[in-house]
């Protein structure tokens, strides 16, 4: 018996015996032997063989049961032995791997760093996308039943889908749609807290009484609103404060019952919202109040009956047993009936209602720009990860080739290929595990960067790394290990024993080269795609930021104050504004200031008609024409250029003169190819005509791009201008931030009754609009740069290894008379050829893929040749840098040493 001769340790080494299938037959044999021995003994004592057998079996006991028991015990024992063996071999692999890794620490560190960045980037972008698109707002229970109401209507030949409607409509849906268990109106606004010099601004959500119960948001301290708090047109003066606001006050337990002076009224705090809950839009909310308590301040006394005021949004919870289409058709019926009842000929009475996601990033007409860019960036992060995986694979391949002889020897000694495969995969696993652990730390930093620098307007839940994201990281790491480790491991195991043992080490390099060059090509191609993406976004951002919108965004401040709400009469309010207008330029750093009424950039818009001869009006995209009343220093303050004619004179400003300035867009639409200066038209119901004295460049109204509006400007005392100044615009010479505080205290000190004075720079106002481009440009650039570095490191490793493998060949070449330059060229050529193929491939992919980037770009062709050429140059430069050191080393090969090394 061979098993008997071979000690267990050797048997284990060569994996002999111990087959679990033999357990049962061994037990069989053992029992049979026992019975046979007993029968022999009994027969020898003179017993009949048959009786002896019966006796032996009787003495033994239940044979079948015994067999079962013994097999179970043995299987258990063998299983444990096997597990211990596997654990031991894994520990052995691990020791071996760590020893190997420590031999080339720099390369390992770089490879792990690359993998770390790849995993971290993928994790963060997954976290962001998860938060933006998948996770419902924190605190909402059974969020899949909660829907935003989207109203879809035709205006002219265009269909608009939006959430903003009149309060009576939302109220009608709430009372007449049986498919909803509840409907709540909500509106986000700013209110003044306190009065006079100390007045400050708070973000307030005006909500229906059922808001918290509808969303299922539990109030941990105090109570939520009830239907009794909400009885339009009034509401109880009570407030629920946000957790962040409460903590800002020092988290007092006795906050319930405290009073808050909001817009001059006393509100009682009745509750604190749960941590993380920040309304449905995930923007900052300081407190919630019943809609009736403040709606009149925002929309006037008619707020709950006016069908023409579009301001609130609706959120509804579906009854659990009803499908969304039923609710949609019921709501659509209510919507159409309401539209018909309004008797407005221009209203589309065949609109529909769509139940949208509770997340405002997923609208019925598609994803928000931020989430679209985030999705792109998640793809980009995956590409970075792939590039990093290619690096790891390349490295492991190089090591597998180096160790070909060693592997062949082990195979010849009888080590199983499966065991060897496991060992080769262990290397990848160790790299992957270290990288995944490091990635968790890097993720924190990257997360903070993305949240606070790139997407600052969103209130994120405490951390985006929750269990799901963690599971994702682990999955990504495993995927990376498998991707990076499987090919080298398969290659390693496929080693042919006799060939490998016969050939000398320097002959080995060639055959595996193909795969590694292919990996280099893929890396180069992917890096180029990212660089092109970065280039396109940077160009777009530059085009957007560099656009002259008629307002010097970085140096212009918008000053607004709600004087009417603070109890000022219209005349007193006008006086307060005029005083601010007069005194603002006395502050150091203020260049000029202007008062604006009616239509204020980034704030409000009202339209007026121009009576053109013939009565036909060209269609204006964006509506209008809008009109503003302005003081004569308005254009000087915003920085807008007068294209034709002139600005208002001080005389025109002081008197009710009938003069106007039209913007370029209006001029182009109404008087194409003509100079409108000098023409005189009736405005609205003013019987006397108003003369055009100038044409000014189109000044931004709401949107930074793709949102130009036809506008005309009138002097402040023109008969069509009513209501007094709405805002003060202030232009500063330098950084406006130091001016803001002085300006506020100067204006607020005007009277002890003054409300909070809001001062925002236009740069801050438009920042959210720039966010998709900023996000795209910075993250694409960051990821592109990382990809470039990773690819360069990979190239360096491969070239260094290539040179090391060919020392002998290079030595021969030099001995035969090759010049050092020829050798350098040979090496560099290898690198540049791979990169060149990668560039062609990458450019093709980019040309194809960037088509879908089109609507995220601004005045940038997705096929911009400059971007493509620059990206390719950057890649070639990186490749040249990465191959220069190996090439120099190859040139310094001493032929004598190289040949003697054999």
């Amino acid at each position, binding site marked *: *018996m061979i*098993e*008997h001769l071979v000690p267990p340790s050797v048997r284990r080494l060569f994996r002999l015996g111990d087959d679990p299938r033999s357990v049962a037959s*061994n037990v069989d*044999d*053992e*029992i049979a*032997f*026992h019975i*046979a*021995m*007993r029968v*022999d003994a009994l027969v020898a004592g003179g017993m009949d063989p048959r009786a002896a057998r019966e006796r032996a079996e009787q*003495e*033994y*006991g*239940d*044979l079948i*049961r*015994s067999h079962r*028991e*013994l097999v179970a*015990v*043995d299987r*258990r*024992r063998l299983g444990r032995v096997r597990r211990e063996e596997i654990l031991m071999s894994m520990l052995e692999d691990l020791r071996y791997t760590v020893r190997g890794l420590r031999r080339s620490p720099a390369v390992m560190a770089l490879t792990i760093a690359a993998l770390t960045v790849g995993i971290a980037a993928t994790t963060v972008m997954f976290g962001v996308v998860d938060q933006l698109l998948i996770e419902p707002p924190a605190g909402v229970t059974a969020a899949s039943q909660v829907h935003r109401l989207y109203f879809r209507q035709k205006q002219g030949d265009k269909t608009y889908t939006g959430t903003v409607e009149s309060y009576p409509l939302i109220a009608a849906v709430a009372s007449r749609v049986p498919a909803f268990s509840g409907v709540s109106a909500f509106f986000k606004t700013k209110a003044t807290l306190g009065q006079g010099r100390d007045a400050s601004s708070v973000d307030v959500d005006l909500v229906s009484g059922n808001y918290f119960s509808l969303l299922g948001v539990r109030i941990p301290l105090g109570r939520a609103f009830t239907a009794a708090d909400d009885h339009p047109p009034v509401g109880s003066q009570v407030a629920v404060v946000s957790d962040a606001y409460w903590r800002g006050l020092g988290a007092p337990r006795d906050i319930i019952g405290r009073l808050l002076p909001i817009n001059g009224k006393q509100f009682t705090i009745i509750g604190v919202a749960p941590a993380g809950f920040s309304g449905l839009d995930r923007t900052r909310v300081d407190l919630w109040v019943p809609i009736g308590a403040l709606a009149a301040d925002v929309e006037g006394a008619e707020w709950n009956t006016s069908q023409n005021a579009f301001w609130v949004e609706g959120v509804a919870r579906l009854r659990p047993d009803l499908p969304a289409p039923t609710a949609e058709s019921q709501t659509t019926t209510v919507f159409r009936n309401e539209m018909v009842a309004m008797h407005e000929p221009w209203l589309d009475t065949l609109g529909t209602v769509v139940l949208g996601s509770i997340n405002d990033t997923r609208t019925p007409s598609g994803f928000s720009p931020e989430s679209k860019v985030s999705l792109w960036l998640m793809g980009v992060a995956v590409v970075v990860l792939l590039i990093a995986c290619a690096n790891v694979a390349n490295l492991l391949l190089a090591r597998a080739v180096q160790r070909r002889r060693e592997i062949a020897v082990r195979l010849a000694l009888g080590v199983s290929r499966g065991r060897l495969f496991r060992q080769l995969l262990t290397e990848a696993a160790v790299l992957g595990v270290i990288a995944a652990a490091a990635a968790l730390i890097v993720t924190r930093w990257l997360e903070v960067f993305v949240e606070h620098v790139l997407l600052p307007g969103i209130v994120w839940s405490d951390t985006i790394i929750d269990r799901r994201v963690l599971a994702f990281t682990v999955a990504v790491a495993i995927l990376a290990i498998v991707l990076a480790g499987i090919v080298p491991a398969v290659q390693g195991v496929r080693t042919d024993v006799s060939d490998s043992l016969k050939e000398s080490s320097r002959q080995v390099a060639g055959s595996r080269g193909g795969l590694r060059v292919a990996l280099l090509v893929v890396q180069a191609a992917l890096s180029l795609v990212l660089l092109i993406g970065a280039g396109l976004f940077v160009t777009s951002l530059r085009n957007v930021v560099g656009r002259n919108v008629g307002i010097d965004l970085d140096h212009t401040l918008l000053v607004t104050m709600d004087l009417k709400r603070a109890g000022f009469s219209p005349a007193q309010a006008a006086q307060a504004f005029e005083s601010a207008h007069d005194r603002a330029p006395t502050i150091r750093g203020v260049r000029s200031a202007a008062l604006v009424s009616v239509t204020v950039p980034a704030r409000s818009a009202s339209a007026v008609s121009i009576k053109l001869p013939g009565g036909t009006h060209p269609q204006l995209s964006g509506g209008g024409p809008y009109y503003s009343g302005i003081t004569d220093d308005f254009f000087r303050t915003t920085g807008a250029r007068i294209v034709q004619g002139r600005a208002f004179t001080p005389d025109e400003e002081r008197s009710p003169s009938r003069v106007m300035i039209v913007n370029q867009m209006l001029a182009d639409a109404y008087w194409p190819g003509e100079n409108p200066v000098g023409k005189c038209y009736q405005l609205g119901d003013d019987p006397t005509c108003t003369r055009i004295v100038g044409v000014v460049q189109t000044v931004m109204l709401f949107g930074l791009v793709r949102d130009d509006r036809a506008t005309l400007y009138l002097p402040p005392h023109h008969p069509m201008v009513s209501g007094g100044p709405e805002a003060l615009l202030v232009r500063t010479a330098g950084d406006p931030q130091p001016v803001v505080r002085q300006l506020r205290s100067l204006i607020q000190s005007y009277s002890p009754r003054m409300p909070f004075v809001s001062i925002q720079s236009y740069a801050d106002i438009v920042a959210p609009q720039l966010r998709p481009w900023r996000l795209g440009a910075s993250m694409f650039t960051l990821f592109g740069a990382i990809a470039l570095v990773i690819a360069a490191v990979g190239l360096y490793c491969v070239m260094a290894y290539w040179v090391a493998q060919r020392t002998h060949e290079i030595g021969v070449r030099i001995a035969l008379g090759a010049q050092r330059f020829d050798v350098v060229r040979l090496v560099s050529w290898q690198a540049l050829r791979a990169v060149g193929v990668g560039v062609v491939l990458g450019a093709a992919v980019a040309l194809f893929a960037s088509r879908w980037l089109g609507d995220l770009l601004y005045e940038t062709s997705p096929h911009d040749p400059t971007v493509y050429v620059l990206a390719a140059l950057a890649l070639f430069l990186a490749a040249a840098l990465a191959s220069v050191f190996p090439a120099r080393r190859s040139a310094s090969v001493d032929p004598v040493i190289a040949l003697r090394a054999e």
Partner: protein
Amino acid sequence: MADDLGLLQGTLDLLVLKVLAWGPLHGYAVARWIKDQSQDAITVEDRALYLSLHRLEERGWVAAEWGVSDSNRRAKYYRLTPAGRRQLRARIAHWTSYADAVFRIIRAEAPARP
């Protein structure tokens, strides 16, 4: 006649370990030893004995190897491992002190009543 002594599993383990302390034996031989030494006072089912042997093997107190018996049959031989030897010493010490205690009690004189 099976299990008429109601032998405890722990006691059977102890006997098996003790028998194996003299040298490697196959299961049949272990069974005979126990019967002969106890002069047939201890009669257990062979099934229980084999279960004991395999469990001791699972715990690593005995090791088993296949060999050839005197009658030229393939047989499984058990021998004590060093851990098994330690176990045997510990169990003997424990059993002896336990048995002493039991004997002291059953042989005691009636206590003097106060």
